[in-house]
């Protein structure tokens, strides 16, 4: 079975349409979405409408959650004052723009999706806000995959696609029962088979230095991952960003493949949200 995994669309309608056309062309049997349908981009309602109408299973992203629950970010969401100010501005604009229908859809999105031995999350199984970077410690990475019970964990949120293979994983769990007089520790060692984390990149807000939208095709039989880079009319999205009253710097960053504001680069940070 050939599945397509898309993530981080961020209200970029042009990019989403181009990617969905490419998915159709690739002949994927099923598409999964890892959330962040809204935020920064100019067409949050239209993007949600397409995902809903096409019945694409989608888990909730951090931006989707923030629009429902309000901003409550850990420091990893905003690595600088400037990024924070831009993020807040984008949040306020999106919050004012989204319709009741859009809000309703975002609110009912699940945090995780499962399909056989595959699990789909936005950031990590722990939080939509947590970044699983390629450099995140192997212990944390493995723990996050094991917590899902799946063999392959699909995530987004970093906006940079990657495949990480966790082979020969070994976790040692030690439980100390202080209530017991001798307070002895019970240890258990688990050896895990090969696990994978696959990041799908970003459809609407790529951060790989090019404006092309990215997503992945995964073959469940061969376990092969294909990264797709899709050209789209990003200048149209840039024009819409400006005409709809979003900061012009968002358009410039999108055209450079630089992402709008967020930039996670600390692999040791564990999200506290």
């Amino acid at each position: 079975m050939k599945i397509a995994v898309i993530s981080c669309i961020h209200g970029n309608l042009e990019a989403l349409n181009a990617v969905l056309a490419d998915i159709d062309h690739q002949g994927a049997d099923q598409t999964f979405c890892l959330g962040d349908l809204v935020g920064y981009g100019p067409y949050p309602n239209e993007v949600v409408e397409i995902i809903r109408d096409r019945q694409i299973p989608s888990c909730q992203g951090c931006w989707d959650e923030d629009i429902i629950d309000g901003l409550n970010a850990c420091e990893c969401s905003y690595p600088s004052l400037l990024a924070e100010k831009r993020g807040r501005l984008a949040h306020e604009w999106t919050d004012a723009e989204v319709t009741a229908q859009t809000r309703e859809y975002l609110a009912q999105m699940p945090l995780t999706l499962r399909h056989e031995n595959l699990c789909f999350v936005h950031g990590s199984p722990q939080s939509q806000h947590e970044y699983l970077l390629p450099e995140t410690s192997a212990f944390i990475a493995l723990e996050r995959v094991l917590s899902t019970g799946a063999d392959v964990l699909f995530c987004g949120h970093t906006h940079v696609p990657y495949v990480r293979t966790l082979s020969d994983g070994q976790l040692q769990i030690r439980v100390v029962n202080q209530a017991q007089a001798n307070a002895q520790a019970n240890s258990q060692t688990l050896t895990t088979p090969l696990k994978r984390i696959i990041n799908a990149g970003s459809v609407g807000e790529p951060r790989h230095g090019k404006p092309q939208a990215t997503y992945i095709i995964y073959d469940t039989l061969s376990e092969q991952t294909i990264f797709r880079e899709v050209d789209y009319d990003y200048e149209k999205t840039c024009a819409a960003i400006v005409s709809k009253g979003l900061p012009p710097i968002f358009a410039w960053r999108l055209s450079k493949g630089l992402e709008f504001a967020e930039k996670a680069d600390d692999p040791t940070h564990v999200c506290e949200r």
Partner: protein
Amino acid sequence: MLTVVAGPCGSGKTHWIWQQMIAQEDAKPLAYISPATVGVDAYRLSLNVPQLQVEHDLPETSHAIRQAAEQQTIYLELGCYLSLDLPELAKIPHRQVAVVSPDCFAHTDWVRSDWEQWADEVVINAVPLAKITASKTTASKTTAIESEFVDSKTDLWQASLRGQVLDPASLHLFWQELVQGAYGRLIRAKAVFELADGDAIYVDHLPHQETTYQDLPLPKWLNGRPQRFSGIEMMGQGLDKGAIAATLSDCCLDDATLKSHQAALKESQAYLSQEAA
């Protein structure tokens, strides 16, 4: 003695002046004038030449200029966007020095001849200017001897940042956007910034070159808003000055954040002192 120093953008005029100042053998007071700037170069020079007197412009009358030039060694640095016609100095003894880079001469001979016509002395600075192609289509003398970087469409923007403290990560983000053209085509930018860790840095961006960052030899400022110079000067084409000012403002710490940073830094310093003891 009055020395007027001019040259293309980024040719090393201030560096040459600094070299002359530290090599001066007589005891005459030193003065530096850089008209129409907020004073980034003046501040850097004053850190290296402590007795330096900094003025914003020449005295208003010829008599006062003559008197000052007799009593002091004055360097008047003309930014590459300023006119090189100096009628007020016509009857005052002075020396005109052009500081240019070797690259200027590599591209066009007439640049050299124009500079030689204007200057009493042409100094070829070792500081390379990466790529210069002069345009003969420009009319005024100022632009005629300048490089491709400066013409009638050139925008200047500068701001004093005194008292402002910047978040380093935000500054990095802003500077990358600035030099990559997010706010218009940047030709030259230089600045002194106060950072959240109490240090001050000098940032310099020359055409076609990587930005350089230099820690300034100043004590950490850990008590309130810094009461010392900081500022930014830039030159470019089609600069969105409003967006630049607003973005820079968004990089600055508010009072509460600054207070919190400084408290943490002082605590850390006290701990390190205790450890050392």
